[in-house]
């Protein structure tokens, strides 16, 4: 939105955004169209689109402005004529927001959602040859604004689609917290046994180089053609538009802020690679798809936190959460799963605070900030001290996955069973064996 001053200025000249105008200043005159404000411009600047397509910014105090013609408003998105082939596998496409489902309006720079199948098929006509697609917009939320309530809603929607006979589900979602959502859905939909594929894009779909097109095509192939019965993430496996990989939802992590191959399997291999022609190459063991569609288990207890231990860190954070009534804590410890423990300055040892919290019923799980590798409760004395204090070592589970799992366990299980469940594999989040080729892949 423009500043109030500019809005008044436009109002007094009876000009709306989108109108064709002539603006004159002391030494120049320009013909163009009033563009909306993108929040990036200075409060005194009006943005005008020139006839040659360029935008320029002029200070409203320096110009006189007259209306030439009223604007047409937002153009409608073009629709492709397409035929849905009923014989193809039935795929439900669920939009939840993020870069992939959005489209920049070329004129204004404003963002709108591509939700209708005909809009989607206009952009990615290949999809009609892969599956019979029904799509729905659940909501439109930025990745960083997602919460467990949205994951619950997605899980319920997926369950509904599966019950209605969908062969597979594709969920488009913002990438920043996609691995949290994937972990949550892995637990919530563990009994569903159909492919649930989360995908997104690192480059918006309004540019010809977007990764969205290939990610969507590969995800649709996986949902339609694979015999995988798990939740996972399907995104570019390399910086090239070559193959996507499908990573187990509990073993995936965003490892780069901007590259299209940001999502990597951690302590795991990808379940499969898939190319744009639909060739699927399985690379790992996985749960098979089956007709046995179980219910979604969507409980989630939000009184869980994820904290990081680091040199000089104070354990007061544990007291804080305890006082706030939190029931669980996942620590991202150093190395094999340490917190400062036998510090010279006793005030910096986490051990007494942890003991106290556990004695008051808080469940504390330990993961590693190394991200790769497995925690261990025996190798060093300090580890043994933490274990004896009641910390549960979470094997090779990702910190984010452990955090999600603890919230989900608290939401659905009896508290006394949780310590045991936390380091027992439920949805592929814990592997018995650490294989050699699972590092930096």
């Amino acid at each position, binding site marked *: 939105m423009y500043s109030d001053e500019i809005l008044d200025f436009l109002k007094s000249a009876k000009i709306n955004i989108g109108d064709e105008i002539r603006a004159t*200043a002391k*030494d*120049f005159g*320009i013909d163009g169209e009033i*563009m909306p404000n*993108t929040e*990036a*411009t*200075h409060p*005194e*600047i009006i*943005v005008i689109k*020139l006839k*040659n*397509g*360029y*935008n*320029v*910014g*002029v*200070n409203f105090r*320096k110009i006189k402005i007259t209306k030439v013609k009223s604007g047409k408003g937002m*153009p*409608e*998105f*073009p629709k492709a004529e397409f035929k849905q082939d009923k014989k193809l596998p039935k795929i439900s496409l669920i939009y939840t927001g993020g870069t992939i489902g959005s*489209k*920049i*309006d*070329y*004129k*204004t*720079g404003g963002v709108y959602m591509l939700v209708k199948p005909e809009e989607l098929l*206009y*952009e990615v006509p290949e999809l009609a040859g892969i599956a019979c697609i029904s799509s729905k917009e659940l909501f439109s939320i930025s990745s960083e604004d997602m919460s467990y309530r949205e994951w619950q809603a997605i899980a319920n929607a997926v369950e509904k689609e599966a019950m209605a006979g969908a062969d597979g589900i594709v969920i488009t979602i913002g990438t920043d917290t996609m691995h949290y959502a994937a972990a949550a859905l892995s637990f919530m939909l563990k009994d569903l046994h159909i492919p649930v594929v989360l995908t997104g894009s*690192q*480059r918006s*779909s*309004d*540019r*010809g*180089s*977007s990764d969205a*097109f*290939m990610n969507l095509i590969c995800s649709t192939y996986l949902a339609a053609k694979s015999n995988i019965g798990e939740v996972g993430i399907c995104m570019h496996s*390399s*910086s*090239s*538009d*070559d193959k996507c990989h499908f990573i187990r939802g509990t073993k995936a992590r965003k490892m780069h802020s*901007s*590259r*299209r191959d940001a999502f990597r399997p951690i302590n795991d291999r990808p379940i499969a690679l898939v190319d744009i022609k639909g060739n699927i190459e399985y690379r790992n063991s996985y749960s098979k798809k089956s007709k046995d569609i179980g219910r979604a288990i969507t409980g989630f207890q939000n009184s869980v936190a994820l904290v990081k231990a680091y040199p000089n860190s104070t354990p007061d954070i544990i007291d804080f959460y305890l006082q706030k009534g939190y029931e669980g804590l996942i620590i991202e410890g150093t190395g094999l799963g340490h917190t400062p423990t036998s510090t010279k300055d006793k005030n910096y040892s986490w051990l007494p605070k942890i003991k106290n919290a556990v004695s008051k019923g808080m469940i504390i799980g330990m993961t590693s900030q190394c991200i790769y590798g497995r925690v261990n409760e025996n190798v060093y004395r300090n580890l043994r001290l933490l274990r004896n204090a009641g910390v549960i070592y979470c094997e090779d589970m990702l910190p984010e996955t452990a955090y999600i799992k603890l919230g989900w366990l608290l939401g659905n299980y009896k508290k006394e069973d949780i310590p045991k469940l936390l380091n027992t594999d439920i949805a592929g989040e814990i592997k018995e064996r650490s294989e050699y080729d699972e590092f930096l892949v």
Partner: protein
Amino acid sequence: MTKKEGMIVTDNGIGYYHSIGFLCGLEIHQRLATKNKLYCQCAASPLQTDAMISNVYRHQRAVAGESGNIDMSAKFEEAKDKTFKYNVYRNTSCLVDIDEEPPRDVNGEALDAALAIASSLDMKFMDELEPMRKEVVDGSNPTAFQRTTIIGIDGSIKIGSYSIDIPAVSLEEESAGIVSNSENATVYDTNRIGIPLIEIDTSPYIESPARAKEIALRIGTLLRVSGKVQRGIGTIRQDVNVSIKEGARVEIKGLQEVDMLDTFVENEVLRQVNLIKIRDILLGRKASVGHIVDLSDLLKNTSVKVINNSAKNGAVIFGFRLIGFDGILGTEINPNRRLGSELGDYAKMAGVKGIIHSDENLEQYGFTINEIEGIKNRLSVGRGDAFILLAGEEPISKKAAELVIERAEYAMKGVPKETRSALDAELGTTRFMRPLPGGFRMYPETDAKPLLLTKTIIDNARLSAPDIEKEVSALKKDFGDDALAKQMLLSPRLVAYKKITNGIKVDRKFVANMLLQKFTEMKRQNIDVDSVDVSLLESVFKKFTEEELTKQGVEEAIRRLAIGGGTIDGIIKANGLERISGKQLALLISRIKGDEKLERSQLIKKIMGKYRFNIDGAELNELLGR
């Protein structure tokens, strides 16, 4: 055909061009000489020694434009279904260049340079600059768009007695350099992408081809006078838009040499004039184009090599009739170019090798009389008709046939709107590249911040604005020689001259003679002396001022640097170019003289024969005189 024969309209002055509704505008793109690229911290000059570290493969697709339409030229590129391979370099490309990281803040050095140049063109500055994306899907930008920002509007430039309007000056990113191009893949280097470019557009009211060249030269001079631009081949490119009444706008892209610019424009006019004439003849003959017919069975045993070779690889041979086109395909419309060549361009764009048409000597191709009759029969070619054949794998050959038919049908309408590229730099002819892009290719670059132009920024730009007249008097003062001053002003090496003479105190006339005469001589010997970095040249002249090199030594050092590269110290050492002077020189003289009784001239000959790079002639003379 010689150049002269092609230039039928050369002698026509402005009056003639006015009478045919001639419109012509220039877009001049010049790389700026900045340390870093426009939107990242990579080095902005392609380092010849930079190591390629990887490559990535990408596809691009046309996306719906502003009003929902996909731009025709964008779609045309997408139809080629190409893989783009991008070479990634250590120091000159980063994630920003391969579309894996958002742009960083705009390069202030580039912005200042562009604003200074715009200031001399009397551009009006806006209060805030709004970065835009211009869609490009030929792969030359890994993002599929070019970042571009208008920095000033409504200016003009004066050339002698007239002036031309400059509606806009913009600051934009250079595209990626093409390495190779084949049917399925294009390879690009990403070391060049993102180098800052200034684009200067003139109004379309340039009144003659000669003036187009004059204006391009004038703008080129202004850019060099600014001292803020890169030099060397490819650092400046001019696109020319040309149309005439009843013709169409055609953009000739990427002309690098201004010398031939007028000829290119004259030829484009001639081409349009001839295409209009052809249109009138075809309309008079009620011409039309037939349907595509598969002739593969008819020609499966042909001895015509071009067809035979394709047929062996499972190609399909298509033909079609052109009713009333007899003799038209072979009509010359430009030096060495016929309507048939224009049609062939479209076929080639689809991926086939070319076309064969009936205005050519078919027997020379190896067709038998029977085959020709067979083709004519099958296509129902009658008197006054022509036909076209083409061969290639499906679906490429079918697509090619469709494109050729579309172009042939356009011959009845006249001149298609096209983007064309230089075909023959000697003749000044062009070929079809792609349809002319429409206007729906711009949208805001939301990843880059708008930039408020403060008074300080603008005042600084005005202070450092280049001024050709001032430059001329400065050069005249430098040389005391008007001819040399004029020569330097028009030379692409002016940028190097300014940098060298600003950096060190050195005999300016000596530098000028070196850059103009000696460089040209070396160029004639095929030594790429313009590839030597300016800072390296500066270091050579510095050695001269420090009396470590003689004038001859300077020339030799530059020659060696141009041939093999290296550092100035390395070159001096390796080639024994150290100057010998003072006591050392006196010692040398007495050693060479020895007991021999040589005449002065013989002695000089003997010494200089061996030490011509090392000894300053004047100093030797002086020493011998004593």
